[in-house]
Protein backbone atom coordinates (compact mmCIF):
# COMPACT_ATOMS: atom_id res chain seq x y z
CA UNK A 1 0.00 0.00 0.00
CA UNK A 2 2.47 2.61 -1.20
CA UNK A 3 1.53 6.18 -0.37
CA UNK A 4 0.43 8.15 -3.44
CA UNK A 5 0.64 11.85 -4.20
CA UNK A 6 -3.12 11.93 -3.69
CA UNK A 7 -2.64 10.57 -0.16
CA UNK A 8 0.06 13.16 0.48
CA UNK A 9 -2.30 15.94 -0.58
CA UNK A 10 -5.04 14.55 1.64
CA UNK A 11 -2.74 14.24 4.62
CA UNK A 12 -1.35 17.73 4.03
CA UNK A 13 -4.89 19.11 3.99
CA UNK A 14 -5.71 17.35 7.27
CA UNK A 15 -2.54 18.81 8.80
CA UNK A 16 -3.25 22.28 7.41
CA UNK A 17 -0.20 22.36 5.18
CA UNK A 18 -0.21 23.45 1.56
CA UNK A 19 2.71 21.90 -0.27
CA UNK A 20 3.41 22.97 -3.84
CA UNK A 21 3.18 20.37 -6.60
CA UNK A 22 6.95 19.91 -6.47
CA UNK A 23 6.83 19.48 -2.70
CA UNK A 24 4.15 16.84 -3.10
CA UNK A 25 6.33 14.91 -5.53
CA UNK A 26 9.34 15.16 -3.23
CA UNK A 27 7.41 14.20 -0.09
CA UNK A 28 5.68 11.32 -1.86
CA UNK A 29 9.01 9.78 -2.81
CA UNK A 30 10.54 10.31 0.63
CA UNK A 31 7.50 9.03 2.49
CA UNK A 32 7.38 6.00 0.21
CA UNK A 33 10.94 5.11 1.16
CA UNK A 34 10.34 5.70 4.85
CA UNK A 35 7.10 3.73 4.84
CA UNK A 36 8.71 0.87 2.94
CA UNK A 37 11.19 0.62 5.80
CA UNK A 38 8.59 1.13 8.48
CA UNK A 39 6.31 -1.55 7.08
CA UNK A 40 8.80 -4.08 8.33
CA UNK A 41 6.67 -4.26 11.46
CA UNK A 42 3.82 -5.83 9.51
CA UNK A 43 5.81 -9.06 9.26
CA UNK A 44 5.57 -9.53 13.04
CA UNK A 45 2.72 -11.50 14.53
CA UNK A 46 1.28 -9.28 17.24
CA UNK A 47 -1.94 -11.19 17.76
CA UNK A 48 -3.00 -10.72 21.37
CA UNK A 49 -0.20 -8.28 22.25
CA UNK A 50 -1.56 -5.44 24.39
CA UNK A 51 -0.31 -2.17 22.82
CA UNK A 52 1.55 0.27 25.07
CA UNK A 53 1.30 3.99 24.46
CA UNK A 54 3.30 5.15 27.46
CA UNK A 55 5.92 3.66 29.76
CA UNK A 56 5.52 5.88 32.82
CA UNK A 57 5.50 3.67 35.93
CA UNK A 58 2.66 5.76 37.29
CA UNK A 59 -1.04 5.16 37.73
CA UNK A 60 -3.94 7.55 37.24
CA UNK A 61 -3.14 10.73 39.07
CA UNK A 62 -5.76 13.41 39.73
CA UNK A 63 -5.73 16.88 41.18
CA UNK A 64 -8.16 18.38 43.66
CA UNK A 65 -10.83 20.72 42.34
CA UNK A 66 -9.20 23.95 43.46
CA UNK A 67 -9.11 27.23 41.55
CA UNK A 68 -5.65 28.60 40.86
CA UNK A 69 -5.27 32.09 39.51
CA UNK A 70 -4.26 31.99 35.84
CA UNK A 71 -2.93 34.71 33.57
CA UNK A 72 -4.13 38.29 33.40
CA UNK A 73 -5.90 39.02 30.14
CA UNK A 74 -3.01 41.13 28.87
CA UNK A 75 -0.50 38.36 29.58
CA UNK A 76 -2.72 35.83 27.87
CA UNK A 77 -2.83 38.01 24.75
CA UNK A 78 0.73 39.31 24.86
CA UNK A 79 2.10 36.72 22.44
CA UNK A 80 -0.81 36.91 20.05
CA UNK A 81 -0.01 38.13 16.54
CA UNK A 82 -3.33 39.97 16.52
CA UNK A 83 -5.76 40.72 19.31
CA UNK A 84 -8.67 43.02 20.00
CA UNK A 85 -11.68 43.17 22.34
CA UNK A 86 -9.66 41.25 24.96
CA UNK A 87 -9.65 38.38 22.49
CA UNK A 88 -7.51 36.64 19.90
CA UNK A 89 -8.48 38.07 16.55
CA UNK A 90 -8.79 35.73 13.59
CA UNK A 91 -10.26 35.96 10.10
CA UNK A 92 -13.98 35.43 10.27
CA UNK A 93 -15.12 31.86 10.06
CA UNK A 94 -17.26 31.68 6.97
CA UNK A 95 -20.56 29.96 7.73
Amino acid at each position, binding site marked *: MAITSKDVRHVAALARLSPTDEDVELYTGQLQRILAHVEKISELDTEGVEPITTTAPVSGRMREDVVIKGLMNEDALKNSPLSARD*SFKVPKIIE
Partner: protein
Amino acid sequence: MNYEPVIGLEVHVQLKTESKLFCGCSTKYGAGPNSQVCPVCLGMPGVLPVLNRRAVEYAVMMGLATGSRINHESVFARKNYFYPDLPKGYQISQYEEPLVEDGHMDIEVDAATKRIGITRIHMEEDAGKLNHGATAEEAGSSFVDLNRTCVPLIEIVSEPDIRTPDEASAYLKAIHDIVVYLGISDGNMDEGSFRCDANVSVRPVGQEEFGTRTEMKNINSFKFVKDAISYEIDRQIEAIEDGEKIVQETRLWDSQRGVTVSMRSKEEAHDYRYFPEPDLMPLVVTEEMISDLKDSLPELPAAKKVRFIEEYNLPPYDAGVLTSERPLADYYEETVKLAGDAKVASNWIMGELLRLLNEENRSIEDCPVGPEALTELIGMIKKGAISNKVGKDVFEEMYKSKKSAEAVVKEKGLTQISDTGELSGAIDKVLSANPDEVERFRGGETKLMGFFVGQTMKATRGQGNPGLINKLLKEKLGG
Protein backbone atom coordinates in the same frame (compact mmCIF):
# COMPACT_ATOMS: atom_id res chain seq x y z
CA MET B 1 -46.58 3.47 3.60
CA ASN B 2 -46.12 3.91 7.33
CA TYR B 3 -42.79 5.01 8.68
CA GLU B 4 -41.19 4.65 12.03
CA PRO B 5 -38.70 7.26 13.25
CA VAL B 6 -35.52 6.13 14.98
CA ILE B 7 -33.97 8.74 17.24
CA GLY B 8 -30.84 8.87 19.36
CA LEU B 9 -29.66 11.82 21.44
CA GLU B 10 -26.19 12.99 22.39
CA VAL B 11 -26.37 15.27 25.39
CA HIS B 12 -23.42 17.43 26.47
CA VAL B 13 -23.51 18.44 30.11
CA GLN B 14 -21.11 20.95 31.64
CA LEU B 15 -20.05 19.77 35.06
CA LYS B 16 -20.35 22.20 37.95
CA THR B 17 -16.77 22.00 39.18
CA GLU B 18 -14.92 25.00 40.58
CA SER B 19 -11.92 24.57 38.31
CA LYS B 20 -11.44 23.31 34.77
CA LEU B 21 -10.96 19.70 33.73
CA PHE B 22 -7.19 19.84 33.26
CA CYS B 23 -6.06 23.08 34.90
CA GLY B 24 -6.87 25.28 37.88
CA CYS B 25 -8.71 28.08 36.05
CA SER B 26 -12.15 29.05 37.27
CA THR B 27 -15.19 27.78 35.38
CA LYS B 28 -17.44 30.68 36.41
CA TYR B 29 -19.77 31.84 33.65
CA GLY B 30 -19.90 35.41 32.44
CA ALA B 31 -16.38 36.71 33.11
CA GLY B 32 -14.67 39.07 30.66
CA PRO B 33 -13.11 37.40 27.58
CA ASN B 34 -9.89 35.47 28.23
CA SER B 35 -9.81 36.32 31.92
CA GLN B 36 -10.07 32.74 33.16
CA VAL B 37 -7.20 31.24 31.23
CA CYS B 38 -3.70 29.96 31.90
CA PRO B 39 -0.90 28.45 29.80
CA VAL B 40 -2.54 25.01 30.04
CA CYS B 41 -5.99 25.90 28.70
CA LEU B 42 -4.46 28.34 26.21
CA GLY B 43 -2.57 25.39 24.75
CA MET B 44 0.77 27.10 25.11
CA PRO B 45 3.88 25.12 24.18
CA GLY B 46 5.07 22.52 26.67
CA VAL B 47 2.12 22.54 29.06
CA LEU B 48 0.43 19.40 30.34
CA PRO B 49 -3.01 18.34 31.58
CA VAL B 50 -3.76 17.05 35.08
CA LEU B 51 -7.21 15.60 35.66
CA ASN B 52 -9.74 17.15 38.04
CA ARG B 53 -10.89 14.51 40.53
CA ARG B 54 -14.28 16.07 41.16
CA ALA B 55 -15.13 15.99 37.45
CA VAL B 56 -14.44 12.25 37.47
CA GLU B 57 -16.63 11.83 40.54
CA TYR B 58 -19.47 13.71 38.88
CA ALA B 59 -19.22 11.58 35.76
CA VAL B 60 -19.26 8.43 37.88
CA MET B 61 -22.32 9.73 39.76
CA MET B 62 -24.15 10.17 36.47
CA GLY B 63 -23.15 6.63 35.55
CA LEU B 64 -24.52 5.31 38.82
CA ALA B 65 -27.72 7.32 38.49
CA THR B 66 -28.38 5.75 35.10
CA GLY B 67 -27.68 2.20 36.20
CA SER B 68 -24.57 2.07 34.04
CA ARG B 69 -21.36 0.09 34.31
CA ILE B 70 -18.44 2.15 35.59
CA ASN B 71 -15.22 1.02 33.90
CA HIS B 72 -12.41 0.70 36.41
CA GLU B 73 -9.99 1.74 33.73
CA SER B 74 -10.80 4.12 30.92
CA VAL B 75 -8.65 5.98 28.45
CA PHE B 76 -8.48 9.60 27.36
CA ALA B 77 -7.92 10.15 23.66
CA ARG B 78 -7.10 13.07 21.46
CA LYS B 79 -9.64 14.12 18.86
CA ASN B 80 -7.66 16.08 16.29
CA TYR B 81 -9.11 18.94 14.29
CA PHE B 82 -8.35 22.58 13.63
CA TYR B 83 -10.63 25.35 14.81
CA PRO B 84 -9.78 28.65 16.49
CA ASP B 85 -11.83 27.76 19.58
CA LEU B 86 -9.70 24.64 20.10
CA PRO B 87 -6.30 25.91 21.25
CA LYS B 88 -4.31 22.68 21.17
CA GLY B 89 -5.64 21.57 17.80
CA TYR B 90 -7.12 18.56 19.58
CA GLN B 91 -9.81 17.98 22.13
CA ILE B 92 -9.05 15.64 25.00
CA SER B 93 -11.98 13.26 25.05
CA GLN B 94 -12.61 9.55 25.49
CA TYR B 95 -13.07 7.31 22.50
CA GLU B 96 -12.57 3.55 22.51
CA GLU B 97 -12.66 3.09 26.26
CA PRO B 98 -15.09 5.50 27.95
CA LEU B 99 -15.60 5.81 31.69
CA VAL B 100 -19.26 4.74 31.68
CA GLU B 101 -21.17 2.26 29.52
CA ASP B 102 -24.47 0.38 29.26
CA GLY B 103 -26.97 2.36 31.28
CA HIS B 104 -30.56 3.40 30.85
CA MET B 105 -33.10 6.05 31.64
CA ASP B 106 -36.79 5.44 32.24
CA ILE B 107 -39.12 8.04 30.82
CA GLU B 108 -42.86 8.51 31.05
CA VAL B 109 -44.86 9.38 27.98
CA ASP B 110 -48.67 9.17 27.89
CA ALA B 111 -48.78 7.54 31.31
CA ALA B 112 -46.58 4.67 30.15
CA THR B 113 -43.00 4.02 31.20
CA LYS B 114 -40.37 3.37 28.58
CA ARG B 115 -36.72 2.47 29.03
CA ILE B 116 -34.18 4.29 26.84
CA GLY B 117 -30.75 2.70 26.67
CA ILE B 118 -27.61 4.72 27.32
CA THR B 119 -24.69 3.51 25.23
CA ARG B 120 -21.96 5.43 27.00
CA ILE B 121 -21.06 8.46 29.04
CA HIS B 122 -17.60 9.85 28.46
CA MET B 123 -15.61 12.79 29.76
CA GLU B 124 -14.17 15.55 27.62
CA GLU B 125 -13.12 19.18 27.66
CA ASP B 126 -15.26 21.99 26.26
CA ALA B 127 -14.05 24.32 23.51
CA GLY B 128 -13.86 28.11 23.63
CA LYS B 129 -16.23 30.62 22.11
CA LEU B 130 -16.09 32.68 18.96
CA ASN B 131 -17.63 36.12 18.89
CA HIS B 132 -18.19 37.64 15.53
CA GLY B 133 -17.48 41.19 14.52
CA ALA B 134 -20.45 43.45 15.16
CA THR B 135 -19.32 46.67 13.52
CA ALA B 136 -18.57 47.15 9.83
CA GLU B 137 -14.92 47.51 10.65
CA GLU B 138 -14.90 44.19 12.47
CA ALA B 139 -17.16 42.35 10.04
CA GLY B 140 -14.31 40.30 8.60
CA SER B 141 -13.05 39.09 11.95
CA SER B 142 -13.91 36.67 14.71
CA PHE B 143 -12.81 37.09 18.29
CA VAL B 144 -11.70 34.06 20.25
CA ASP B 145 -12.56 33.84 23.95
CA LEU B 146 -11.01 30.83 25.64
CA ASN B 147 -12.64 31.08 29.09
CA ARG B 148 -14.85 28.09 28.34
CA THR B 149 -11.98 26.04 26.96
CA CYS B 150 -11.25 22.99 29.10
CA VAL B 151 -14.42 23.26 31.20
CA PRO B 152 -15.40 19.68 32.03
CA LEU B 153 -18.18 18.03 30.04
CA ILE B 154 -19.80 14.66 30.00
CA GLU B 155 -21.35 13.43 26.79
CA ILE B 156 -24.28 11.10 27.30
CA VAL B 157 -25.00 9.01 24.21
CA SER B 158 -28.33 7.22 24.03
CA GLU B 159 -29.16 4.08 22.14
CA PRO B 160 -31.40 4.68 19.10
CA ASP B 161 -34.36 3.65 21.26
CA ILE B 162 -36.38 6.83 20.95
CA ARG B 163 -39.32 6.71 18.57
CA THR B 164 -41.20 10.01 18.86
CA PRO B 165 -40.42 13.68 19.38
CA ASP B 166 -42.31 13.50 22.70
CA GLU B 167 -40.10 10.67 23.87
CA ALA B 168 -37.03 12.65 22.86
CA SER B 169 -38.21 15.62 24.84
CA ALA B 170 -39.12 13.47 27.84
CA TYR B 171 -35.73 11.76 27.73
CA LEU B 172 -33.91 15.08 27.54
CA LYS B 173 -35.99 16.38 30.44
CA ALA B 174 -35.26 13.26 32.48
CA ILE B 175 -31.51 13.62 31.87
CA HIS B 176 -31.76 17.28 32.76
CA ASP B 177 -33.65 16.56 35.99
CA ILE B 178 -31.08 14.00 37.03
CA VAL B 179 -27.97 16.10 36.44
CA VAL B 180 -29.54 18.96 38.35
CA TYR B 181 -30.73 16.58 41.07
CA LEU B 182 -27.26 15.16 41.43
CA GLY B 183 -25.90 18.68 41.65
CA ILE B 184 -23.31 17.88 39.00
CA SER B 185 -24.51 20.57 36.58
CA ASP B 186 -26.56 23.72 36.72
CA GLY B 187 -28.31 22.48 33.57
CA ASN B 188 -28.57 26.01 32.26
CA MET B 189 -29.48 25.80 28.60
CA ASP B 190 -29.21 29.52 27.95
CA GLU B 191 -25.63 29.57 29.16
CA GLY B 192 -24.84 26.45 27.19
CA SER B 193 -24.22 24.16 30.11
CA PHE B 194 -26.76 21.65 28.76
CA ARG B 195 -26.71 20.98 25.02
CA CYS B 196 -28.23 18.41 22.76
CA ASP B 197 -27.56 16.86 19.35
CA ALA B 198 -30.08 14.50 17.77
CA ASN B 199 -29.62 11.69 15.28
CA VAL B 200 -32.78 11.02 13.31
CA SER B 201 -33.69 8.46 10.68
CA VAL B 202 -36.92 6.86 9.48
CA ARG B 203 -37.68 3.37 8.20
CA PRO B 204 -40.80 1.63 6.94
CA VAL B 205 -42.64 0.01 9.81
CA GLY B 206 -41.51 -3.59 10.13
CA GLN B 207 -38.11 -3.03 8.55
CA GLU B 208 -35.20 -4.23 10.66
CA GLU B 209 -32.32 -2.09 9.50
CA PHE B 210 -32.09 1.60 10.18
CA GLY B 211 -32.53 4.24 7.51
CA THR B 212 -29.83 6.82 6.75
CA ARG B 213 -29.61 9.26 9.61
CA THR B 214 -28.99 12.95 9.83
CA GLU B 215 -27.50 14.71 12.81
CA MET B 216 -28.91 17.93 14.18
CA LYS B 217 -26.51 20.01 16.21
CA ASN B 218 -27.18 22.21 19.22
CA ILE B 219 -30.92 22.03 19.65
CA ASN B 220 -30.85 23.60 23.02
CA SER B 221 -34.35 23.69 24.42
CA PHE B 222 -36.93 21.03 25.17
CA LYS B 223 -39.27 22.65 22.69
CA PHE B 224 -36.68 22.91 19.91
CA VAL B 225 -35.83 19.25 20.33
CA LYS B 226 -39.44 18.33 19.75
CA ASP B 227 -39.91 20.78 16.88
CA ALA B 228 -36.65 19.98 15.13
CA ILE B 229 -37.16 16.24 15.32
CA SER B 230 -40.80 16.52 14.16
CA TYR B 231 -39.73 18.61 11.23
CA GLU B 232 -36.88 16.29 10.35
CA ILE B 233 -39.06 13.18 10.48
CA ASP B 234 -41.60 14.79 8.13
CA ARG B 235 -38.87 16.01 5.83
CA GLN B 236 -37.27 12.59 5.58
CA ILE B 237 -40.57 10.79 4.98
CA GLU B 238 -41.50 13.29 2.31
CA ALA B 239 -38.12 12.93 0.65
CA ILE B 240 -38.38 9.14 0.60
CA GLU B 241 -41.92 9.27 -0.76
CA ASP B 242 -40.62 11.56 -3.51
CA GLY B 243 -38.06 8.93 -4.37
CA GLU B 244 -35.10 10.90 -3.00
CA LYS B 245 -32.23 9.43 -1.03
CA ILE B 246 -31.50 10.68 2.47
CA VAL B 247 -27.96 12.00 2.71
CA GLN B 248 -26.01 11.35 5.89
CA GLU B 249 -25.18 14.88 6.97
CA THR B 250 -25.24 17.44 9.71
CA ARG B 251 -28.24 19.76 9.72
CA LEU B 252 -28.90 22.91 11.65
CA TRP B 253 -32.24 23.73 13.31
CA ASP B 254 -33.39 27.20 12.30
CA SER B 255 -35.82 28.02 15.09
CA GLN B 256 -36.89 31.27 13.44
CA ARG B 257 -38.15 29.58 10.31
CA GLY B 258 -38.93 26.24 11.94
CA VAL B 259 -36.89 24.18 9.49
CA THR B 260 -33.67 22.16 9.47
CA VAL B 261 -31.01 23.27 7.04
CA SER B 262 -28.22 21.22 5.53
CA MET B 263 -24.68 22.17 6.57
CA ARG B 264 -23.23 19.81 4.03
CA SER B 265 -21.70 22.49 1.86
CA LYS B 266 -19.53 23.76 4.71
CA GLU B 267 -18.41 20.40 5.93
CA GLU B 268 -15.16 18.89 4.89
CA ALA B 269 -14.39 15.27 5.28
CA HIS B 270 -13.59 14.80 8.95
CA ASP B 271 -10.90 12.47 10.07
CA TYR B 272 -10.34 13.04 13.76
CA ARG B 273 -7.36 10.70 14.01
CA TYR B 274 -8.20 9.64 17.56
CA PHE B 275 -5.34 8.12 19.55
CA PRO B 276 -4.70 7.58 23.26
CA GLU B 277 -3.65 10.82 25.00
CA PRO B 278 0.02 10.22 25.92
CA ASP B 279 0.01 13.04 28.48
CA LEU B 280 -2.54 11.26 30.68
CA MET B 281 -2.30 7.81 32.16
CA PRO B 282 -5.41 5.63 31.96
CA LEU B 283 -8.13 6.88 34.31
CA VAL B 284 -8.40 4.47 37.21
CA VAL B 285 -11.59 4.43 39.26
CA THR B 286 -11.41 2.11 42.24
CA GLU B 287 -14.23 0.04 43.68
CA GLU B 288 -13.85 2.07 46.87
CA MET B 289 -14.36 5.37 45.03
CA ILE B 290 -17.43 3.96 43.30
CA SER B 291 -18.98 2.67 46.52
CA ASP B 292 -18.29 5.95 48.32
CA LEU B 293 -20.02 7.83 45.53
CA LYS B 294 -22.88 5.35 45.57
CA ASP B 295 -23.38 6.10 49.26
CA SER B 296 -23.32 9.82 48.66
CA LEU B 297 -25.84 9.67 45.83
CA PRO B 298 -28.99 11.64 46.60
CA GLU B 299 -32.44 10.07 46.20
CA LEU B 300 -33.32 10.34 42.52
CA PRO B 301 -36.59 11.74 41.15
CA ALA B 302 -38.21 8.40 40.33
CA ALA B 303 -37.55 6.93 43.77
CA LYS B 304 -38.55 10.13 45.46
CA LYS B 305 -41.85 10.20 43.60
CA VAL B 306 -42.72 6.69 44.76
CA ARG B 307 -41.85 7.61 48.31
CA PHE B 308 -43.96 10.81 48.18
CA ILE B 309 -46.95 8.80 47.01
CA GLU B 310 -46.54 6.30 49.81
CA GLU B 311 -45.32 8.49 52.64
CA TYR B 312 -47.46 11.57 52.05
CA ASN B 313 -50.42 9.92 50.38
CA LEU B 314 -50.17 12.19 47.39
CA PRO B 315 -51.78 11.52 44.03
CA PRO B 316 -49.12 10.44 41.45
CA TYR B 317 -49.50 13.67 39.52
CA ASP B 318 -48.82 15.86 42.56
CA ALA B 319 -45.92 13.66 43.60
CA GLY B 320 -44.50 14.00 40.11
CA VAL B 321 -44.69 17.78 40.17
CA LEU B 322 -43.24 18.07 43.66
CA THR B 323 -40.29 15.80 42.86
CA SER B 324 -39.47 17.27 39.46
CA GLU B 325 -36.78 19.44 41.00
CA ARG B 326 -34.74 18.66 44.03
CA PRO B 327 -35.10 22.12 45.67
CA LEU B 328 -38.87 21.96 45.22
CA ALA B 329 -39.01 18.52 46.81
CA ASP B 330 -36.80 19.76 49.64
CA TYR B 331 -39.09 22.78 50.09
CA TYR B 332 -42.10 20.53 50.27
CA GLU B 333 -40.59 18.13 52.75
CA GLU B 334 -39.37 20.95 54.94
CA THR B 335 -42.86 22.45 54.99
CA VAL B 336 -44.46 19.11 55.82
CA LYS B 337 -41.99 18.67 58.65
CA LEU B 338 -42.78 22.11 60.08
CA ALA B 339 -46.50 22.28 59.40
CA GLY B 340 -47.23 18.61 60.02
CA ASP B 341 -49.83 18.32 57.25
CA ALA B 342 -48.77 16.76 53.96
CA LYS B 343 -51.99 17.45 52.10
CA VAL B 344 -52.28 21.11 53.10
CA ALA B 345 -48.60 21.73 52.30
CA SER B 346 -49.02 20.14 48.88
CA ASN B 347 -52.13 22.24 48.19
CA TRP B 348 -50.31 25.45 48.98
CA ILE B 349 -47.19 24.61 46.98
CA MET B 350 -48.99 23.11 44.00
CA GLY B 351 -51.45 26.00 44.04
CA GLU B 352 -50.47 29.52 45.03
CA LEU B 353 -46.73 29.06 45.28
CA LEU B 354 -46.06 27.47 41.89
CA ARG B 355 -48.60 29.75 40.24
CA LEU B 356 -46.76 32.86 41.40
CA LEU B 357 -43.32 31.40 40.62
CA ASN B 358 -44.38 30.35 37.15
CA GLU B 359 -45.87 33.75 36.40
CA GLU B 360 -42.46 35.27 36.94
CA ASN B 361 -40.47 32.32 35.67
CA ARG B 362 -38.75 32.16 39.01
CA SER B 363 -37.17 29.09 40.50
CA ILE B 364 -38.06 27.75 43.91
CA GLU B 365 -34.62 28.72 45.12
CA ASP B 366 -35.54 32.38 44.60
CA CYS B 367 -38.91 32.06 46.29
CA PRO B 368 -39.39 34.95 48.72
CA VAL B 369 -41.61 32.83 50.98
CA GLY B 370 -39.64 30.11 52.68
CA PRO B 371 -41.01 26.94 54.33
CA GLU B 372 -41.03 28.61 57.78
CA ALA B 373 -43.05 31.58 56.54
CA LEU B 374 -45.49 29.33 54.74
CA THR B 375 -45.86 27.20 57.86
CA GLU B 376 -46.71 30.28 59.89
CA LEU B 377 -49.44 31.15 57.42
CA ILE B 378 -50.82 27.62 57.47
CA GLY B 379 -50.84 27.76 61.26
CA MET B 380 -52.84 30.99 61.31
CA ILE B 381 -55.49 29.46 59.09
CA LYS B 382 -55.65 26.33 61.18
CA LYS B 383 -56.11 28.39 64.34
CA GLY B 384 -58.92 30.25 62.62
CA ALA B 385 -57.14 33.59 62.85
CA ILE B 386 -57.82 34.08 59.14
CA SER B 387 -59.88 32.26 56.59
CA ASN B 388 -58.41 30.13 53.86
CA LYS B 389 -59.56 32.67 51.33
CA VAL B 390 -57.95 35.58 53.12
CA GLY B 391 -54.91 33.36 53.48
CA LYS B 392 -54.42 33.38 49.73
CA ASP B 393 -54.34 37.16 49.64
CA VAL B 394 -51.97 37.17 52.57
CA PHE B 395 -49.70 34.73 50.77
CA GLU B 396 -49.59 36.92 47.69
CA GLU B 397 -48.66 39.88 49.83
CA MET B 398 -45.98 37.87 51.63
CA TYR B 399 -44.59 36.86 48.26
CA LYS B 400 -44.46 40.47 47.10
CA SER B 401 -43.17 42.13 50.26
CA LYS B 402 -41.32 39.27 51.97
CA LYS B 403 -43.19 40.16 55.16
CA SER B 404 -44.34 37.51 57.60
CA ALA B 405 -47.95 36.32 57.58
CA GLU B 406 -48.65 37.91 60.94
CA ALA B 407 -47.26 41.26 59.82
CA VAL B 408 -49.39 41.23 56.68
CA VAL B 409 -52.53 40.29 58.57
CA LYS B 410 -51.94 42.93 61.20
CA GLU B 411 -51.07 45.67 58.71
CA LYS B 412 -54.10 45.07 56.58
CA GLY B 413 -56.47 44.40 59.47
CA LEU B 414 -57.35 41.01 58.03
CA THR B 415 -57.76 39.18 61.31
CA GLN B 416 -60.76 36.93 61.15
CA ILE B 417 -63.85 38.16 63.00
CA SER B 418 -64.84 35.49 65.46
CA ASP B 419 -66.79 37.82 67.74
CA THR B 420 -70.37 36.53 68.00
CA GLY B 421 -71.85 39.93 68.67
CA GLU B 422 -70.19 41.59 65.72
CA LEU B 423 -71.12 38.78 63.33
CA SER B 424 -74.70 38.68 64.70
CA GLY B 425 -75.10 42.33 63.86
CA ALA B 426 -73.84 41.79 60.33
CA ILE B 427 -76.13 38.79 59.82
CA ASP B 428 -79.14 40.69 61.06
CA LYS B 429 -78.42 43.40 58.50
CA VAL B 430 -78.12 40.84 55.69
CA LEU B 431 -81.36 39.12 56.67
CA SER B 432 -83.35 42.33 56.90
CA ALA B 433 -81.98 43.50 53.52
CA ASN B 434 -83.12 40.27 51.84
CA PRO B 435 -86.62 39.45 53.11
CA ASP B 436 -87.63 37.53 49.95
CA GLU B 437 -84.75 35.12 50.24
CA VAL B 438 -85.45 34.60 53.93
CA GLU B 439 -89.02 33.74 53.00
CA ARG B 440 -87.94 31.27 50.32
CA PHE B 441 -85.41 29.66 52.65
CA ARG B 442 -87.99 29.12 55.25
CA GLY B 443 -90.18 27.72 52.52
CA GLY B 444 -87.65 24.91 52.05
CA GLU B 445 -85.10 26.37 49.60
CA THR B 446 -82.19 25.46 51.90
CA LYS B 447 -79.55 25.89 49.26
CA LEU B 448 -79.92 29.63 49.80
CA MET B 449 -77.74 29.14 52.86
CA GLY B 450 -74.72 29.71 50.66
CA PHE B 451 -76.15 33.00 49.52
CA PHE B 452 -76.51 34.25 53.09
CA VAL B 453 -73.02 33.13 54.01
CA GLY B 454 -71.67 34.91 50.96
CA GLN B 455 -73.50 38.10 51.74
CA THR B 456 -72.31 38.05 55.33
CA MET B 457 -68.71 37.44 54.24
CA LYS B 458 -69.04 40.34 51.88
CA ALA B 459 -70.35 42.55 54.65
CA THR B 460 -67.38 41.60 56.83
CA ARG B 461 -64.94 42.16 53.94
CA GLY B 462 -64.14 38.48 53.95
CA GLN B 463 -62.94 38.49 57.49
CA GLY B 464 -65.87 36.77 59.08
CA ASN B 465 -65.18 33.33 60.46
CA PRO B 466 -67.11 31.14 58.01
CA GLY B 467 -67.77 28.39 60.54
CA LEU B 468 -69.22 30.79 63.06
CA ILE B 469 -71.28 32.58 60.40
CA ASN B 470 -72.79 29.27 59.37
CA LYS B 471 -73.65 28.40 62.91
CA LEU B 472 -75.25 31.79 63.64
CA LEU B 473 -77.21 31.78 60.39
CA LYS B 474 -78.62 28.35 61.14
CA GLU B 475 -79.71 29.53 64.57
CA LYS B 476 -81.33 32.69 63.27
CA LEU B 477 -83.02 31.19 60.21
CA GLY B 478 -83.96 27.89 61.72
CA GLY B 479 -85.44 29.48 64.82
